């Protein structure tokens, strides 16, 4: 049963990912990308990582992709952008990346054949995630938070209205 669910979700994820790449309409591509992320969330859930699955939806599908759609709406892309996207899908552009991705895929399959059991389900509870994040991986958490803080300060600096003449009057 788990196997069937896994493969259905995996096929949907891969097909949606391919569709996301090949759409020339940016909005359609984004919708397929969102479906891909939802599919990955289902895969995480089936592999016994419900916390990662929930975060995948909350953070990626729920927040980051919303901002992507937001940008698409602001830019209001027209026929011109679609033509440019179409030209980027020419054979010579996707040949090399897909060859490299193919090599990676073969490597991944070889790794999996070494007797790893990805379907061996042991549910990882939120508590276990928290304990390992704030235990052995505390350095990684701290580094990530430093990086995010730097991003925050940078975004604040760039967003400041120091370029306009009558600054401070914006409110």
């Amino acid at each position, binding site marked *: 049963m788990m196997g069937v669910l896994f493969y259905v979700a995996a096929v949907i994820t891969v097909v949606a990912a391919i569709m996301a790449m090949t759409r020339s*309409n940016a*909005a*359609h591509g984004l*919708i397929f990308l*969102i479906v891909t992320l939802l599919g990955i969330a289902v895969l995480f859930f089936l592999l016994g990582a*419900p*916390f990662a*699955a*929930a*975060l995948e*939806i*909350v953070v990626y*599908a*729920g*927040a980051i992709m*919303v*901002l992507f*759609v*937001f940008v*698409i*709406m*602001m830019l*209001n892309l027209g026929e011109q952008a679609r033509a440019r996207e179409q030209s980027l899908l020419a054979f010579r552009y996707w040949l090399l990346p897909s060859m490299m991705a193919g090599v990676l895929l073969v490597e991944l399959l070889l790794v999996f054949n070494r007797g790893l059991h990805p379907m061996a389900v042991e*549910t990882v*509870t*939120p508590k276990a995630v928290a304990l390992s994040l704030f235990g052995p991986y505390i350095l990684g958490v701290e580094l990530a938070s430093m990086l995010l803080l730097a991003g925050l300060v940078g975004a604040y600096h760039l967003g400041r209205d120091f370029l306009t003449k009558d600054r401070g009057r914006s*409110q």
Partner: protein
Amino acid sequence: MDELKVVAFIVALVGGAVGAAAVMTWFERRMLGIWQDRLGPNRIGPFGIVLVAADMLKLLGKHDWIPPFADRPVFVLAPTAIVIAMMLGFAVVPFAPDLVVIDMNVGLLFFLAMTSLAVYSVLLGGLASNNKYALLGGLRSAAQMVSYEVFMGLSLMGVVMLAGSFSLPTIVEAQSQLWFAITQPLGLFVFIIAGLAESHRLPFDLPEAEHELTAGFHTEYGGMKFAMFMLGEYLGLMLISCMITTLFLGGWLGPVLPPIVWFFLKTFVVILFFILLRAAIPRPRYDQLMSLGWKVMLPITLINLMLTGAIALWQSGGMP
């Protein structure tokens, strides 16, 4: 519960939620009428309740028109997203000790995930309509919902800290001595406001704001597609009310009456409160909404989180 019972419960839940949403359209107008000192819809049937059927008939009978300039597939997809996401959100709501579709150990996160997916409905609806008003409505909703989602999640972390779990039945059990509404007043306050903003109901209905944007993101929608947006909005309101009951008002806990009656009673009071807010509070300006969110709500939430963490640590004896 065995499989068959779960399926029966799901069917009952879907039917019940959709039916309740339909009745609520009438109930809300009626209550607004009372609070605003007028009659409200009272003509058809006892207290005007047959109006629900009349409304449904009208919406079903309308010509289902898709504007020629719209992005057809996305235009059709958009209204379904909010209904599906909100219905899925009900899966983790514990109505009574054993009456829950699935008791996940990430139940609360699942609820947050589903409410965050509901944004797409408004966003894609605005984008696919290919219309200036709809686009502006969609843009506003994206900014509003992404901002308010941040502290909607953060305001609940105090509850999670006190209960020690993301699982909703466990959170209800943890309130057997004292409701979290009393120990987490700031969390409740922020969650109510963020919940209103997430379900874009009247004080915070800037995405549709009919005075400035005609009807915002659903300007181009009519008939059943429009009804889907409305259904999603009412489902969202009910889901938020259920979550407030579960997280802050002790869920099914209460004396004498059976648990499920307590749950619905509390949820009903919360819904009434939301309708009263709609009758009482005017819509803020867009920049007021955003600065309220980031300059008032976020600091309140962070202070609440810090205090709760400190107290929880002190009570567990972890602090010297």
